[in-house]
């Protein structure tokens, strides 16, 4: 928490396009409307353009509650339907511990330590058993 306390951000979360991957960087404290807006923006962008994957960097996020957790899970499920993959990158230890304690282990979510690791992961062909850096739980 180097940058002190987060300030609320207003408007849209910028979505960056890197080749066939969309990169979203979440920072600070996201309010509900913005999270919903992002979810909508992403599915529209994916549907419009051929995108192979989405990386959501949450290393700047100090808290994920059940609402934001659900939004992340829904984004992942949506992109899956649109034949793309979502990787959530850079979750902080305190955030991960809290989510687990809260009871939200988000089993279907792909995760990576960093944005680079996430991009690497998306570059790999989809072979579930040999996906490095990512755990996907079988139901």
């Amino acid at each position, binding site marked *: 928490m180097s940058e002190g306390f987060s300030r*609320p951000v207003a408007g849209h979360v910028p979505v960056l396009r890197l080749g066939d991957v969309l990169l979203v960087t979440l920072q600070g404290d996201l309010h509900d409307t913005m999270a919903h807006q992002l979810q909508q923006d992403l599915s529209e962008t994916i549907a419009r353009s051929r995108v192979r994957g989405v990386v959501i960097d949450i290393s700047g996020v100090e808290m994920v509650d059940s609402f934001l957790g659900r939004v992340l899970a829904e984004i992942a499920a949506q992109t899956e339907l649109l034949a793309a993959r979502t990787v959530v990158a850079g979750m902080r230890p305190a955030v991960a511990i809290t989510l687990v304690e809260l009871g939200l282990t988000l089993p279907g979510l792909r995760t990576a330590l960093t944005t680079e690791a996430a991009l690497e992961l998306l570059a790999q062909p989809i072979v579930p058993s040999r996906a490095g850096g990512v755990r996907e739980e079988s139901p």
Partner: protein
Amino acid sequence: MHTGAGVEARLPIRSDMDLVWVRQHVRQAAAGLGFGLVDQTKLVTAASELARNTLVHGGGGLMEASHVTTGGTDGLRLTFSDTGPGIPDLDRALSDGYTSGGGLGMGLGGARRLVHDFAVESAPGSGTTVRVTSWVSRPPRPREDA
């Protein structure tokens, strides 16, 4: 019970923007009282869950924060109150997976696991009050789940 500076507050919960203020206040108050990073995050997350309950189910309300001490240990107490319809079946509301709108059904039961003390008062028609307290640098409360 003693009062501490910068902790005491009454914050309205009327919109999702207010949730942001609630989280930031709790974060600052917890940091000021000396909570560690993980405990701060737990408390902020619990506050976010409870404030959202107040907003979504209680039709809006209020969060009160206060500094409490017991035997020299500092704590942060948060009280969320609304005058909404109340919770008809508390046991069910506290069980995981129960939800009556939005979220993953982790609201009350999940928030309870993130704090040391948890109390809820509610009756149909007379609103809901949830009071949570966490203490600085105390080992996690004993596990109560089966």
